[in-house]
């Protein structure tokens, strides 16, 4: 078996003249990719929605669910209109072309690698759905719904789609050899950076940090966490785009990293406060999963465990630093968990891909040092570009509508004020 560099393979298959055989659909690969698409869908709806929803105060539960749901729908249509085409059609270094706008030309017979192109489109669509849904956690409990919607759409078009093209669509980062199997840069860093930028631009929630804002329903948070873990099998395993040993290994290391991240975070809490907490363990799980994501197709089991452990510990301290020290109200800690975890995993991929660590081994002519520098470029480019564009977009949207709800609305809760509903009538 030869190493595939994650989803980039798809781009390559689409772009290059291929032997006839490769254009035949494999039912087994297709079966897995249909499933993987469904699995990534469940991560956003209802996985992430519940995970986040349980963490806010009860009067903002519905606003979180609504934001995640609306984003999921709007991004699906955006992907249909131009997103897919700009990301995956054409081989520009910076952006694709509009040949497949409105998915024109995609038929029953279109093939992408060994699967129908329709399946590749849906699979990738679930990625653009979840990425902006992730950053909702950064400005939770205070952002104005219409500003949120406008921002998410523009952001996806101007941040997600280009970076997706850079890394997986044949763009400059992919060409440079960046290893990002399932979205350490494309998904987690972009979401994390955008969340913290929004938190800063919008300002803290009223009462932060003095006033207690405990999660209102940790049960649904844990339910969401379970669905995230479940769905992540599709996220990382599906990024192989085939049902083979690569997908199997991706899932194995993903699973081990989740377990290791969970226990790492829990242990730190246990040592520091004498009490392991359920919020801690599920946050560690997300940290472990976010960290392994870029590396999942490249490393072996031991690499997975080590990445998970470091993700759990480092994201823990990053959380303390951002909220405790910097007093930035990234409400649900999106940056320290996803941003930091995604960057960590992108860098560590360069280490643990080494065959000596049980990984898939470096490509011809690549050393750990050279790979590490490519990874670092990928991380820095993603952070800088995302931060700059996110900031600009928020400022622009802020000229058109209020970014933030007013104080009374925040007091009363967004559910009632913005959506005319209440979460609980028990």
């Amino acid at each position, binding site marked *: 078996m030869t190493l595939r560099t994650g989803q980039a393979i798809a781009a390559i298959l689409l772009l290059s003249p291929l032997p006839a055989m490769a254009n035949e659909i494999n039912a087994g690969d297709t079966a897995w990719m249909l499933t993987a698409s469904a699995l990534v869908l469940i991560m956003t709806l209802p996985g992430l929605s519940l995970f986040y929803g349980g963490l806010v105060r009860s009067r903002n539960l519905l606003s979180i669910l609504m934001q995640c749901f609306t984003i999921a729908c709007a991004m699906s249509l955006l992907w249909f209109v131009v997103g897919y085409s700009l990301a995956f059609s054409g081989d520009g270094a910076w952006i694709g072309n509009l040949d497949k706008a409105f998915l024109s030309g995609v038929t029953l017979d279109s093939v992408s690698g060994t699967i129908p192109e329709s399946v590749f489109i849906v699979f990738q669509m679930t990625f653009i759905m979840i990425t902006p849904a992730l950053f909702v956690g950064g400005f939770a409990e205070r952002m104005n719904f219409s500003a949120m919607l406008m921002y998410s759409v523009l952001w996806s078009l101007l941040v997600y789609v280009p970076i997706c093209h850079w890394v997986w669509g044949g763009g400059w980062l992919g060409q440079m050899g960046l290893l990002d199997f399932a979205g350490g840069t494309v998904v987690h860093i972009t979401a994390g950076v955008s969340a913290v930028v929004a938190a800063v631009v919008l300002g803290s929630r009223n009462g932060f940090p003095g006033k*207690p804002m405990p999660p209102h329903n940790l049960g649904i948070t844990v339910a969401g966490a379970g669905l995230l873990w479940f769905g992540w099998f599709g996220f990382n395993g599906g990024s192989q785009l085939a049902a083979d040993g690569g997908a199997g290994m991706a899932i194995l290391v993903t699973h081990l990293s989740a377990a290791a991240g969970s226990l790492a975070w829990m242990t730190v*809490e246990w040592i520091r406060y004498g009490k392991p907490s359920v919020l801690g363990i599920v946050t560690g799980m997300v940290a472990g999963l976010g960290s392994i994501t870029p590396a999942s197709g490249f490393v072996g089991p031991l690499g997975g465990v080590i990445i998970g452990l470091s993700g759990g510990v480092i994201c823990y301290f990053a959380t303390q630093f951002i909220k405790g020290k910097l007093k930035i109200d990234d409400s649900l*800690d999106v940056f320290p968990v996803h941003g930091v975890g995604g960057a960590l995993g992108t860098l560590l991929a360069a280490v643990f891909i080494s065959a000596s660590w049980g990984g898939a081994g470096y490509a011809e002519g690549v050393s750990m040092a050279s790979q590490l520098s490519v990874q670092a470029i990928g991380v820095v480019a993603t952070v800088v570009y995302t931060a700059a564009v996110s900031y600009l977009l928020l400022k622009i949207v802020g000229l058109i509508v209020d970014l933030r709800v007013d104080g009374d609305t925040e007091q009363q809760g967004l559910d009632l004020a913005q959506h005319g509903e209440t979460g609980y009538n028990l």
Partner: protein
Amino acid sequence: MKLITAIIRPFKQDDVKDALSQIGVMGMTVSEVKGFGRQKGHTEIYRGAEYAIDFIPKTKIEVAVTDDLVDKVVDAIVESAKGNKVGDGKIFVTNLEEVVRIRTGETGDDAL
């Protein structure tokens, strides 16, 4: 007639109910409240952010009784709700000017 209001620990509710039933009290009304007093609250920690929770779950029991029963009822509550630890709670007695049973329209002691 008097209204006796007791703030007690939630898990003592059944004991108090039983004690009151034994001395012939036929009715009472119970609600969930949160108390603040000498008893310490607790700390909750969420992702490293510590929150001091000062208010402690308590149960409020309201019993309307005829004047002659007041002492017996107060004693019964004290006896059954006591745990000898700070936070056992308090009993308040107020005067009731009138009581009406909605179903029958009866008033006064008959309504109890």
